[in-house]
């Protein structure tokens, strides 16, 4: 018998069975006296019918379990036939339950999500040897979240991304944590640093970001970033909900940065000095959607053997503050970071500063947004000049994001800015540039 025929037969049998029981149930029912009683009676019968139907179709009553996992109630949103066009609450219309793949085995619950993005950009003047216009492969991210029991959780984020002409696989996050309570958790592994709100808010999820590019202060180590975005270490944190609002606190000890900005030291450490960072956030109860916070970080960056300009270590101090406001259709995020490198070899201190403000407003499935972004750097820092991120730059972008499907969005962005560039001769020039970009980002 075909699958369709067996469905029809099951449906007919269920209808006959329930119809017979419904009639039997109706016989002894006395006529309700008032409208309210009639309504209650109808509600009760409706519930009985739902329960009986589920018993026939699934062999279980409603709400077989309320766990947020694979043993969710039969009515939960992972139905056998996810494309039932007559169901007003089919997964295609609902919020989150149709995202990701979820499985449960005993005490283990596993969720897998996949993020991807591709795009096109035009830049004038072009950068380096690149052409004006180019298509690009952005990234493919695989996120795995596992829960074992009530308090143990593990997370992995693996990213496949383009690195110049090659495609690389990077383990961006890998940690496990024990959650004692809302007030305290302990986490061990590779995680994103707390010295940027953008960094911890979006991680590598391009679909989550409203804009195409990250702001200067949150760019990754290999992509013009000057602030550390990853660490390997241990983190303690928690949150406390009070009458005044919610307080979030995080502290971490990690390997710290490697001898060059691109070395993240995720698999080892070249010196015994560890990096320390902490952050604090406050969400006032009387102003839903507002979050203010900041963080700081201290690190001893190791010197480089054989390089007289980097003979000794560099003490790096980072301070960060942000304001975030999301309410209804409005989203605003403003952030500033101060970074100081104390070069013990040259005896000089270099102060760097970067800030941005981004505002977006959702109108239906469209979100127009704009961002002003600036980086004021002190030239000649022996640590940052290796990758030319000791140069000033500002940029103004304006764009629109269109969420054409609940799990996919297209972004179109225009940008104009001015940047300092270091020529082969060592001379610095200031160039105005403008860009057009588009990005297709999705997750499932």
């Amino acid at each position, binding site marked *: 018998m075909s699958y369709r025929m067996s469905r029809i037969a099951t449906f007919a049998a269920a209808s006959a069975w*329930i*119809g017979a029981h*419904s009639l039997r149930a*109706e016989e002894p029912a006395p006529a309700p006296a008032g*409208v309210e009683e*009639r309504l209650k009676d*109808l509600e009760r*019968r*409706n519930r009985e*019918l*739902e329960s009986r*139907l589920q018993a026939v179709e699934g062999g279980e*009553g*409603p*709400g077989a*379990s*309320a*766990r*947020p*996992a694979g043993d969710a*109630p039969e*009515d*939960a949103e992972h139905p056998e036939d996810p494309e*039932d066009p*007559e*169901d*007003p*609450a089919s997964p295609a*219309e*609902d*919020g*989150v*339950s149709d*995202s990701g793949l979820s499985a449960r085995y005993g005490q283990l*619950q596993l969720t897998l999500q996949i993020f991807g993005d591709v795009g096109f950009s035009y830049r004038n003047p072009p950068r380096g040897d690149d052409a004006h216009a180019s298509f690009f492969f952005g990234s493919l991210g695989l996120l795995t979240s*596992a*829960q074992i029991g*009530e308090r143990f*959780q593990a997370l992995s984020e693996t990213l496949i991304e383009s690195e110049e002409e090659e495609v690389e696989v990077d383990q961006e*996050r890998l*940690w496990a*944590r024990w*959650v004692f*309570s*809302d007030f305290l958790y302990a986490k061990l592994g590779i995680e994103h640093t707390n010295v940027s709100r953008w960094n911890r*808010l*979006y991680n590598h*999820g391009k679909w*989550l970001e409203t804009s195409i590019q990250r702001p200067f202060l949150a760019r990754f180590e290999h992509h013009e970033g000057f602030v550390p975005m990853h660490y390997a270490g241990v983190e303690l944190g928690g949150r406390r*909900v009070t*009458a005044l609002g919610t307080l979030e606190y995080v502290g971490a000890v990690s390997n710290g940065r490697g001898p060059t900005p691109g070395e993240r030291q995720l698999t080892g450490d070249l010196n015994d000095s560890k990096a320390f960072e902490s952050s604090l956030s406050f969400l006032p109860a009387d102003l*839903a959607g507002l979050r203010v916070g900041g963080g700081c970080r201290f690190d001893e960056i190791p010197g480089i053997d054989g390089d007289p300009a980097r003979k000794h270590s560099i003490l790096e101090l980072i301070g960060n503050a942000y304001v975030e406001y*999301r*309410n*209804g*259709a409005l989203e605003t995020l403003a952030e500033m970071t101060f970074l100081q490198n104390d070069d013990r070899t040259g005896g000089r201190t270099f102060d760097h500063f970067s800030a941005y403000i981004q505002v977006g407003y*959702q109108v239906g499935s469209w979100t127009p947004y704009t961002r002003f972004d600036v980086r004021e750097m002190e030239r000649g820092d022996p640590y940052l000049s290796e990758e030319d991120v000791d140069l000033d730059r500002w940029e103004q972008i304006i764009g629109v994001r269109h*969420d054409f499907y*609940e799990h996919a969005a297209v972004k179109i962005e225009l940008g104009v800015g001015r940047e300092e560039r270091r020529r082969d001769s060592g001379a610095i020039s200031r160039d105005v540039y403008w860009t057009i970009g588009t990005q297709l980002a999705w*997750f499932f």
Partner: protein
Amino acid sequence: MISRLPSLGARPWATTPVLAALFATPAWTGDGAAPAPVVVVIVHKENKVADPTFKELRALLLLDRQFWPDGSRVVLIRRPTTSAEEKTLLRELYSMTEDKLRKYWTGRLFRGEIPALPSIVRAGPAAVAAVSKDRQAISVVLSTDVEDGVRTLSIDGKRPEDKGYPLAVKEAK
């Protein structure tokens, strides 16, 4: 009551006794009109948690608070964004659009702030049944769906039948 009818749409045969009873019912008048349903917050009947304030409820339903006072984990059972219950929460409690709420949950999982996405239960009676079987569960249903086995929480000291209760359902225009 009206808002519940669509849930029967997928099974038209199931509406037969309901429609028959409706036709047998005298036309509603202003005097006999049933009170408008409200969204109520339910927990297991043996859950002794204190009635929350409006702000505490927001923290619970957005999993800003993930543990009950006795140390057990909060098991949130969400309702579809198409339901009257979730629409009411979006408007009155979350101050978010549907898109923002979707991003909110995806982002929280992506950041590792929650170990898994909350499950979603479509029908109110099924949500009531699920909560009645799980001591750690919390959900929202229409007041007309409430049955034995669950405890209805007051919000800011107001019962669902009280005037000024904050989670009133607005009829779609």
